[in-house]
C-alpha cells in the first residue's frame, strides 16, 4: 500500500503524518509541491497540517492551486483516496474536493488541546476501525477550523452519512459540531483534529492509530 505525503512551504505535520502511515504498514513517499505528478501507484495522498504558504490570502488557498494539487484533484477524480488533516482539510475545501469552507474560529483564538470527538460513521476506509458513536480523544491545533456550510449542505452531509467526526464540546464554532467530513464516494476525508498526533503511546494517546490502521488495511486488501 503506497501513500504520498505532500510537502508545501510551511507544512509542519508532514513528517508526523508519514510516521503514522509507515507505522500502519504503508510505504510512504514525500512529494514536493512543485512536482506535477504523484509517484506511480499511489493509493492514498496525505495532505498534512501546518501553515502552507504562511496562510497567505486564506488558509490553504495557495496550496490548493499548486502544481501537485492539480495531480491530487485528478487522483480523487479517478477514485483515489486522500486524507487532509487540519491545513490539509482547508486545502481540500479550497480545491472544492470537499464542500464547505473553514473560517476563523468563532472565539478568534488559536485552540491547541486534546478534544473529544464522536465517530459519526464507521462506514469508510478511514473510520472502519472505530464503531459508530464511539468517543475518541484527538488533539486539535488551529486558528481557522470553524466549518461553514449552508443548511442544505449540512442536511445532505448528514443524510448521506458523510459527517465522519463531530466535536463533543464545540471548540471553534463549526456548524453542527462538524470536525471532519467525507467525500461523496467516501474516499476523501478532511478533518481538523490531528489523528497522527495521537497514534502511539508516547503521544499521550493512541485513539488516532485506528484511522491509519484501518485505512492502510483496507487499501492493502484492495
Amino acid at each position, binding site marked *: 500500500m503506497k501513500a504520498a505525503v505532500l510537502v508545501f512551504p510551511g507544512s509542519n505535520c508532514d513528517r508526523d503524518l508519514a510516521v503514522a502511515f509507515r507505522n500502519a504498514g504503508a510505504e510512504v513517499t514525500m512529494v514536493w509541491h512543485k512536482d506535477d505528478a504523484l509517484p506511480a501507484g499511489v493509493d492514498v495522498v496525505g495532505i498534512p497540517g501546518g501553515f502552507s504558504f504562511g496562510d497567505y*490570502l*486564506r488558509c490553504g*488557498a495557495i496550496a490548493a*492551486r499548486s502544481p501537485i494539487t492539480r495531480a491530487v484533484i485528478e487522483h480523487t477524480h479517478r477514485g483515489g483516496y486522500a486524507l487532509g488533516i487540519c491545513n490539509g482539510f482547508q486545502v481540500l475545501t479550497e480545491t472544492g474536493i470537499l*464542500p464547505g469552507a473553514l*473560517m*476563523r474560529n468563532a472565539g*478568534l483564538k488559536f485552540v491547541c488541546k486534546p478534544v473529544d470527538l464522536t465517530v459519526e460513521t464507521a462506514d469508510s476506509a478511514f473510520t472502519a476501525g472505530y464503531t459508530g458513536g464511539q468517543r475518541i480523544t484527538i488533539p486539535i491545533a488551529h486558528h481557522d477550523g470553524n466549518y*461553514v456550510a449552508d443548511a442544505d449542505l449540512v442536511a445532505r452531509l448528514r443524510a448521506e452519512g458523510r459527517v465522519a467526526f463531530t466535536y463533543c464540546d464545540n471548540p471553534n464554532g463549526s456548524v453542527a459540531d462538524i470536525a471532519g467530513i467525507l467525500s461523496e464516494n467516501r474516499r476523501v476525508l478532511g478533518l481538523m483534529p490531528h489523528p497522527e498526533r495521537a497514534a502511539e503511546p508516547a503521544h499521550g494517546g493512541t485513539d488516532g492509530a485506528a484511522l491509519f490502521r484501518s485505512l492502510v488495511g483496507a487499501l492493502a486488501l484492495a
Partner: protein
Amino acid sequence: MKARVHVMLKDGVLDPQGQAVAHALGTLGFQGVGEVRQGKVIDLDLAATDRATAEAQVREMCEKLLANTVIERYDIEIG
C-alpha cells in the same frame, strides 16, 4: 491598468473578526456602531490596456483564487 478588488464575507456568513472589532470600538467609547464586517482589498497592476479585458481577467482571478466564493463575494474596480 490598475484594478482594485474588494473581498467581503457574504451576507449571512458570521464574521467573528468584525464582531471583535465592533466590540473593541465600543470599549474605546465609540457610540452607535452597529454591525462591523471586515474584508480585504487587493490592488493589481495589469498589463491589459482596455477596461473590458482587464475586468474579465480580474473576474477570472477572483473566481479561481482571490475569493472563496463559498463564503465570500467580491467587487472589482478598474482604473
